């Protein structure tokens, strides 16, 4: 890892000003993506601005139809939150399925959603639960936030502050993991919203990252049962093919995990 200068601002304003004043800065949250990247010298920020002491980035607020999670909240905290479990149990289950105990103790929702790894778990919940991403300067609807592999519409220096999820009528999450990395090879977050709309978000499989699978949404809109998506597969030209799994295999997995998510509404199924 190259040398770097570490900063721990106590306010949002201080963090944003610091970012604009110094050259080659990066925000640091749990560091469980950024530090390994720096060790591999794939990133070499001259300044690290730790966002974890900024008060606006912590805490979980729950309303009747909204759950708002501070960006610096760890996966373990979300997994253990009784307030969230009462409204969206599959979101707790998703958080509890990320990496391992040690990773969940440190990694944060904001870091994961800012990083937008195509195999990360949270982006699927953000899309399926029609979340709003609140930053230091604006609010971005989920549909306008993800912008391809490891890319989002966050501007340089923009801080993700809170993520606001819509509480659905019911939701389910199913994931098929790569046995070595334990990241998703394919995972589906399925939610039926209170207005009757059904959202299906797929992670792990898309060649442009997380995506809404509209054909499955239409099929489930007509009949909200696991069998409604039987035989339905996404176009494999839109999927990743790599040494872990070719695109046609991933297409099949997308069908499997979507059906399993519908079979496990109110919970999760991880394999």
């Amino acid at each position, binding site marked *: 890892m190259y040398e770097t*200068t*570490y900063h721990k601002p106590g306010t949002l304003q201080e963090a944003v000003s610091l970012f604009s004043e110094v050259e080659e800065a990066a925000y640091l949250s749990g*560091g*469980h993506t950024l530090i*390994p990247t720096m060790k591999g010298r794939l990133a070499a920020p001259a300044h690290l601005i730790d966002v974890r002491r900024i008060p606006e980035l912590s805490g979980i607020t729950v309303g009747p139809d909204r759950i708002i999670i501070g960006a610096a909240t760890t996966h373990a905290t979300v997994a253990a939150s009784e307030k969230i479990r009462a409204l969206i149990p599959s979101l707790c289950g998703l958080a509890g399925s990320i990496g*391992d*105990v*040690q990773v969940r*103790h440190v990694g944060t929702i904001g870091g994961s959603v800012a990083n937008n790894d195509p195999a990360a778990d949270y982006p699927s919940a953000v899309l399926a639960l029609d979340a709003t991403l609140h930053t230091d300067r604006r609010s971005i609807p989920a549909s306008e936030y993800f912008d391809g592999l490891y890319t989002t519409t966050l501007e340089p220096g923009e801080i993700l502050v809170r993520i606001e999820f819509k509480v659905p009528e019911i939701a389910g999450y199913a994931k098929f993991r790569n046995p070595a990395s334990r990241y998703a090879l394919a995972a589906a977050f399925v939610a039926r919203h209170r207005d009757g709309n059904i959202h299906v978000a797929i992670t792990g499989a898309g060649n442009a990252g997380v995506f809404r699978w509209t054909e499955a949404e239409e099929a489930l809109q007509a009949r909200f049962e696991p069998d409604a998506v039987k035989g339905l597969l996404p176009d494999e030209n839109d999927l990743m093919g790599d040494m872990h799994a070719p695109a046609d295999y991933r297409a099949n997995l997308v069908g499997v995990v979507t059906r399993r998510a519908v079979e496990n509404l109110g919970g999760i199924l991880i394999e």
Partner: protein
Amino acid sequence: MSKVAITVNGTLHTKEVEDRTLLVQFLRDHLGLTGTHVGCDTTQCGACTVIVDGKAVKSCTILAASIEGASVSTVEGLADGEKLHDVQAAFHEHHGLQCGFCTPGMIMASVNMIERHDGVLDEATVRHELEGNLCRCTGYHNIIKAVLSAAEKHRTAHAVAAE
């Protein structure tokens, strides 16, 4: 460079270190506590697991400067003189190690797991909670036996204490 003050196994240590110093380097290179191992240096293996403010973490992926003021437990802090900690004794008794390289991380993850669950653990939970700790020797079965037996001991001790 930053001045970093961290309490390790009950003793406060203040050191002037480079900002890029990882917690595991702080422990091994600056404090000479080489019980904490570096297996992969890529956040995969868990050999570097220590407990920071009550949570098991991978010390190869945490900047020392970022935990200024925290309290850290490492494997060196477990035994009471010649008397092994219950989890260490259980690993010994159940042959939960062969080469021993993964053991400090396994033990710290297990100590933390038993504390967080008040010793109420079953085999499936222990296996799930040890997903972040890799062992290339034992095949895990004896590690699981050791953790379950130490958890049982913890439950009994606490039940007695509560009476």
